[in-house]
């Protein structure tokens, strides 16, 4: 599973009725690693079974004495974020993995247009700190209005942060902003899937090529979490995947090490060979051809269509 860093939950604050912010400080005074804007950490969330959930770091990239993450309570059967809300309190010790980045600002961008929906504002906290420090111009549009993180950003960069009451107001502002950006601007978007799709669609209609549009898929549509079985082809082992865990988590719990980065079906790191069975692909990494071939699966998010078993090319 790689190195972990033990941190103390120094403070817990309610950002919204269903969003809780944790301030994480190092245990023994050794500074935490500095990170690049847009980075996340994987938090090992205690509970009946340990979860490993990715959260964006919502603080300045040079904030090495304390990290902040915002956790939204999701009642979709994935126990991780619920466990944070129910079981994690001030003073607790958590293990986190060192920061990684799948959403770094484009190097050489002369201006940034940032669009956030809901808790999708979190990666832009580190962006804003860095861009202000570097003197790179940007504008951030987010909805809904209010919230401590948004207020903090508005204070950090007055004039660059635009709060909108709801989705319609946000989209109207984004449509206008898309027509008013000088060459050299890049667009970065983070939020719920439907909102990100709407922004991507607007960008295309306004003539933005895909290479200028960057997405942090924060909340994936997960779909139902039905249990199923897998078999490891090379050892013949059978492993049951429960309704409250991912295939990756079930493999980890059974002591099978699978490399991963994002745990969100984006990066491709966890790809496994699939020998038999009908997968229910939920990642956004595999191409349509690869899906059709049915010979690979991303276990961090994808499941089985039916009871299985899926036969994996693993020992």
């Amino acid at each position, binding site marked *: 599973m790689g190195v972990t860093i033990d941190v103390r939950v120094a403070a817990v604050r309610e950002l919204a009725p269903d969003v809780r912010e944790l301030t994480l400080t190092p245990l023994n005074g050794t500074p935490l690693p500095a990170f690049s804007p847009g980075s996340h950490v994987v938090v090992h969330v205690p509970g009946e079974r340990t979860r490993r959930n990715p959260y964006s770091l919502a603080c300045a990239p040079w904030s090495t004495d304390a990290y902040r993450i915002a956790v939204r309570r999701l009642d979709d059967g994935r126990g991780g974020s619920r466990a944070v809300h129910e079981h994690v309190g001030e003073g607790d010790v958590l293990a986190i993995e060192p920061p990684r980045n799948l959403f770094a600002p484009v190097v050489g961008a002369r201006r940034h247009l940032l669009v956030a929906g809901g808790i999708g504002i979190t990666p832009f906290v580190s962006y804003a700190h860095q861009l202000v420090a570097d003197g790179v111009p940007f504008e951030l549009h987010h909805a809904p209005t209010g919230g401590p993180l948004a207020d903090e950003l508005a204070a950090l960069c007055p004039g660059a942060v635009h709060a909108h009451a709801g989705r319609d107001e946000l989209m109207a502002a984004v449509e206008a902003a898309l*027509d*008013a*950006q*000088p*060459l050299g*601007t890049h667009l970065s978007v983070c939020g719920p899937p439907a909102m990100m799709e709407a922004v991507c669609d607007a960008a295309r209609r*306004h*003539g*933005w090529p895909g290479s200028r549009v960057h997405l942090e898929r924060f909340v994936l549509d997960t779909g139902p979490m039905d249990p199923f079985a897998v078999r490891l082809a090379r050892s013949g082992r059978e492993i049951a995947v429960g309704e409250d865990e991912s295939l990756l988590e079930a493999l980890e719990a059974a002591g099978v090490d699978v490399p991963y980065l994002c745990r969100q079906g984006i990066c491709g790191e966890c790809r496994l060979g699939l020998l038999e069975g009908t997968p229910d692909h939920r990642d956004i990494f595999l191409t349509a051809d690869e899906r059709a071939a049915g010979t690979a699966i991303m276990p961090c998010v994808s499941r089985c269509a039916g009871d299985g078993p899926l036969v994996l090319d693993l020992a």
Partner: protein
Amino acid sequence: MTYGVSLEHTTLPKDPGLRLDPDAREHLVAAVPAGPAVRRLRAEHARDGHGPLTLLEGDEDAVLAALAERLAAAGVGLRLYVAGAEGFVRRAVRVGLDAGLVADEILTEVDAGAARDVWCSHCKAITRGVTTTVAPCAGCGRMLEVFHHFSRRHAAYMGFQVDAEVPGEIPEPEVRWA
């Protein structure tokens, strides 16, 4: 003689051809001369383009200057279409990238002569309109061998002194980019 520059590892410019990008909301055309490729593009624009199409006219230098000026005031959503002689096309692409366009926003077609601009790795001068595999540098007079290595920064192909190892041993120039 080799310089560790192999064909597989070099970045040679590719020219996808002037095809209208129907998603763009503004189309800027730099073509010297404006030939059949531009006529085709205009026809496509009349059929399914939205947003204005502007053709920059004049000689190469005038068009490049006008291009830089237009792009300085342009917004994201613009596509640049470039056609003409190889050297001009490369220089116009450089102007576009410098102005903040990304490669996907520039469509190119070489339709007026393949003569290359060559950057001398010794004196740094650029020799324009090179048609032969070996040619004298306009800056220092060395005989340069033109390599399959394109420098985006200089918008020119790299040239190395051909007789650096055995002075005076100069192969017969071969016309290749007429």
